[in-house]
């Protein structure tokens, strides 16, 4: 579980990367259910909210969700594990993003870096909606 020291570090990184204070919030730090909510705006100007579960962070890859159920190019819910769409099983009616593979994971990875990967996922998602190409047409698989 994220501890105070790591929490302060992560907050410092977001500040250093010029995130406006209204764009993110750490919730439940020091409790068994800590998480981060952070906004992401795509190049097209669309805003998404990311929910990053910090229960087992940084020892384990955190679960990341978009706080709504996204639809794919065909209008289907993105609620199931899909290698081609880089998604995992949904929870709370939210689409879960596959952002890191276990072999690439280390506790050094910052929440900011996860955010960057999720922003790329969002760009790939919007390109998928526009073209019908699967996300893995744009994203390589991490291991």
């Amino acid at each position, binding site marked *: 579980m994220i501890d105070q020291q790591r929490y302060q570090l*992560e907050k410092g990184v977001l500040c250093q990367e010029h995130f406006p204070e*209204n764009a993110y919030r750490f919730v439940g730090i020091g409790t068994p259910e800590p998480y981060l*909510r952070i906004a992401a*705006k795509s190049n097209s100007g669309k805003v998404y909210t990311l929910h990053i579960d910090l229960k087992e962070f940084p*020892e384990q890859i955190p679960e990341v969700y978009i706080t709504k159920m996204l639809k794919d190019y065909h209008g289907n819910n993105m609620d199931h*594990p899909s290698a081609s769409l880089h998604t*995992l099983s949904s929870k709370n009616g939210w689409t879960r993003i596959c952002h890191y593979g276990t072999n690439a994971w280390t506790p050094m*990875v*910052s929440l900011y870096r996860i955010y960057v990967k999720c922003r790329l996922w969002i760009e790939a998602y919007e390109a998928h909606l526009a073209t019908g190409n699967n996300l893995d047409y744009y994203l390589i698989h991490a291991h």
Partner: protein
Amino acid sequence: MADIIYINHQDVINFAASTVEELDAYAYEWEGEGVVHIHLHPLKHSFGDLSKVSFSRASSVSTYEGDSRFVVLVATKENIASATLFERTSDGYSEKDYVYIPSQEDLYSRNEGLLELDILSKKKVIIVGLGSFGSQIAIELAKAGVGVFSLFDFDRVELHNLSRHTCNANELGRLKTDAIEDAILGKNPYATVKKYPVNINEHLYLLEKELKNADLMICATDNNASRYNISKALVRHKKIGIFGRAITRAEGGDVFRYRPGGPCYGCLIGADFLPPEEITNVESARGDGRIPAYVSAEDANAIVQVGLSSDIQPICNLMVKISLLELSRGLNSGINSLEDDLVYDCYIWANRREKNYKEWHPFFQAGKNRTVIRWYGVNVPRNEGCAICSHNVELDVSGVGGFKPQVDDLGDVTLEL
């Protein structure tokens, strides 16, 4: 009639030191084999036929009035307890020869000169993970005389374990903590074993509590999340830890030793020179994402290709050697010379020239080139910014492929909470 009879020597000593005149005891006989073991207390897991025994202070069996199959007459002379054994026959009780199951003092006398019993009998080792690695290591350490164990594993013995685990088919379904406790006590009946059938990632406080007075921790888990948690605990409590793992199909493996102040497991993984580890269990790998949810059941089963027990034994063996070296460091033992040999942080072993080792040279003409069936030592640089062991953590805040998103346009967004 019994042909070979063993009496627990410690029981004779304890009975002689007590004030009771007579006690009922237990004789276990391997069916049809004529071999009997006599104990004052019932065994937790008994074998074979059970018959009644009496421990008595009577000076002669002729005064014994009970009906036990065996009578053990215990006498003390010049502070030394001795036993005379009788077995009931159709003609009454007749004296029998017996052999002692050694007392604690005698049990490891054969190790004298190499590892004295009193060096390790008070040493406490925590073993996290009792799979094919942890089970073997636990038993080897018990055989070497380690006297105090704390075992962590929430798993049960399953069919897929059997080919590499110390447990056998009769133990299917048992908690591994229970099964390995028995195995330890079978080798060292005087060991103390604490059992924690829990997932340490969810019960770190238990691990921390045990670690406070431990001498060493063995990390024999199968995933990095637990290794990072263990590593953090080792750093916090300034304790030595030995990590071991096999890579795919046990084509090779590695052993890492953490020493307080040195590089930790986080530094090792950050150094990025170890190949991906072996996946031995679909369920656990699904649970922690090593096999992503989108991988089909068929493909997942193809990923799980475990190696042979003989392929992981060299890795377990080195973990045991390093453990014994660390436990007896600074003490007068016969293995101290290894302190000059086992000086590296990490050791790498290859069983076969496959995948990660396919470029390595054949053993018979390798010369100074890297080859199989040989250990290689590596020193790992300490990462001064390591998230596990450093006070000055330097997180990875790099972009991905040069991409760093613009975020200053988020000033007008409303965050969903």
